[in-house]
Structures are given as C-alpha cells and as structure tokens.
C-alpha cells in the first residue's frame, strides 16, 4: 500500500531549471564545439514512450550508456513533438513513493542508467500533434559534455511494460 505522488512541477521551478539548462547548454555548446572531433560518449537504447489516450501526460523511457572515461549528466530534454518534456523520478521513502522533478541525471563512466518504469521517467505533456501507438517521436537529450542526442522513441500501447 504505497502512496504514490505524481509531482507536477511548478512554473517557477520549471523556469529556473530551464534557465540553468539554457546557460549550461550555451556554455557547454562552446566547449563541445572545440571538442567536436571527440567521439560521442553517450548513446541511447531501448527508447520508448508509453502512449495514453486523450492527450494525458505520457512517460518516456530509455537506457543511456556512457562509453567514456568520465561521468556525464543528462541536463535537459526537449521535443518538437511535446510542449513539455522533463525528467521525473519516483522516490521511495519508506512505505511511500513520491514523484519529484530531477534537474540532472548522472550516467557513470563506462556505465549506464535505465530510465525505466517505477524509477526515472521522462514526463511528456501537451502533445503538439496527434500521437498514436506505432508512431515515432523524437526527444532531444542534452548532456553536460555538450553533446545532444536527437533520439527516436517508439510510441507503444500502454498495455506494454517494456
């Protein structure tokens, strides 16, 4: 009987995070440019969205793999398919679980992080066009090393758990 909370971020928190992410991506974009020849450390796999009807908020899931020698943070998410995209985490607190907005997610060096049901999810709101199971949507995942992954996510029926 775990109480669950779905945290909807406040406007101010969202704006603050966006400002931080923007300044980060601006400053890091410059560094990233200088290192353009370096191979990309982060790759994405098993990216999918659990579709829900009636334009309900949907969750995106993906596994991020870091082939590099240094930890890299996921610092921002955006999408041309959704008005709002942000990283949330379901946090267990004893017998209860809470959903909180997360500013960054660290992918360890030579490691990986699964953004998966019951843990992290990419909260997707305000679809900009009709989206249905079988479609592919794209999410731009921005990282602290300056890289951006424009990642295709397979839209799946909600009955699927993977």
């Amino acid at each position, binding site marked *: 009987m775990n109480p669950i*909370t779905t945290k909807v971020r406040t406007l101010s928190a969202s704006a603050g995070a966006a400002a931080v992410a923007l300044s980060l991506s601006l400053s890091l974009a410059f560094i990233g440019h200088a290192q353009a020849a370096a191979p990309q450390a982060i790759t994405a796999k098993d990216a999918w969205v659990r579709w829900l009807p009636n334009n309900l908020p949907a969750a995106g899931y993906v596994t991020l793999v870091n082939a590099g020698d240094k930890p890299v943070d996921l610092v921002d998410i955006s999408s041309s398919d959704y008005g709002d995209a942000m990283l949330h985490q379901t946090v267990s607190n004893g017998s209860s*679980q809470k959903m909180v907005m997360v500013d960054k997610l660290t992918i360890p060096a030579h490691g990986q992080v699964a953004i998966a049901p019951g843990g992290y999810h990419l909260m997707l709101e305000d679809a900009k066009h009709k989206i249905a199971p079988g479609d592919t949507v794209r999410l731009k995942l921005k990282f602290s090393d300056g890289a951006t992954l424009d990642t295709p996510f397979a839209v799946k029926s909600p009955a699927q758990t993977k």
Partner: protein
Amino acid sequence: MLSAAALLAMFALAGCSQRAEPWHLTNVSGHLPDLDFSLTGDDGRPVTGASFKGHTSLVYFGYTHCPDVCPETMGRLMQVLNKLGPDAQKVRILFITVDPARDTPQALHDYVGAFDPTHAEGLTGTDWQIESLAKRYRVAYQMEKRDPNGNYEVTHSSAVYVFDAQGRARLLATDNDTPDAIAQDLRRIVDQRS
C-alpha cells in the same frame, strides 16, 4: 490419538498439496471487507460490487493523469491476464479513480479501453462514494496542491486487491510481486470457485 510424528507427517503431506501451499501474494482473507460498493461505471451507468459476482476481481485505485506507476501497474496486470490464458475470462480489473473530478466515465472508458476493453472497467463516483470506499479498504489518497496551470497530483496507494467470485477479499498484490507470482495465485483463486 495422533502422535506428534503423525501430525508432522500430515503437515508435511498437506504442504505438498495445492491448498496448503503458501500464497505468493499477501493473504488478506478475513482481514478486509467483501467487495461492496455503489459507483458509476465507465458507461455512465450505476454499478455495484454485486455486478462482479462470479468474477475474480482485481481492484486498483488510481487515476488517469498518472504517467508512470498507474499505467505500469495496469500494464503488469495485462501481462498477468496473458499468463492466465482462458482463465482470464473469469477475471475483471476494476480501475477505481481517486480523482473523480477529472476522471469522468468517458475519460475512464478511453483509459481502460487503451489497455483492455474486455477485462478492464473504469469506475468513478461522487467524492463521498470514493472516499468511503477507499476508507473501507484502507487506501490512503490525497489531492495535492494545484500548480499555476491547474494541474495537480493525487497521492495514493499502489496495491492491487484480489476478490474471489463471491466477492470476498483474498489477496493483496504490490509493486514487488511479479506478474508470474500474481498469475499463479490468481489461477488458484479462479479455480477454487468451480
């Protein structure tokens, strides 16, 4: 007079039989009230606990504006139904909203229909109906503060309650129970009624 050894042997034998096997899920038989409610179905019509007599009912309290854990739980219940095969015909999933303000019968109809229109039914009611039902099954839920866009979250329990064909509360499944474990226990509940 039975000797202690004979008693032990009997328990050991009983341990091998289907009936005495421990449940994978939490056994709540005798600890929670029978399935009894008056709500509104996702077709807009009144529905009571008696409407589901004859079916094994999986009762889940959730809401549709819940992107992660609610659909994940429903998705896992879909896996359970798949594992049950033909026995799934004797099972119903009752998705009872804890957010009746937003979850109209039509919204619930679309939501459960996206999972399984045959076996899943969405139920809503007045605030009082939902509150008293949640209290009856000791489900904690609470509407949280609205954000500037008017969106809000609802804290709630994630357990799935299993009622047998006579409407008796039998088992409680949590996030930690695998679809296999749930399916194995459900098969026993479904088979017991015949």
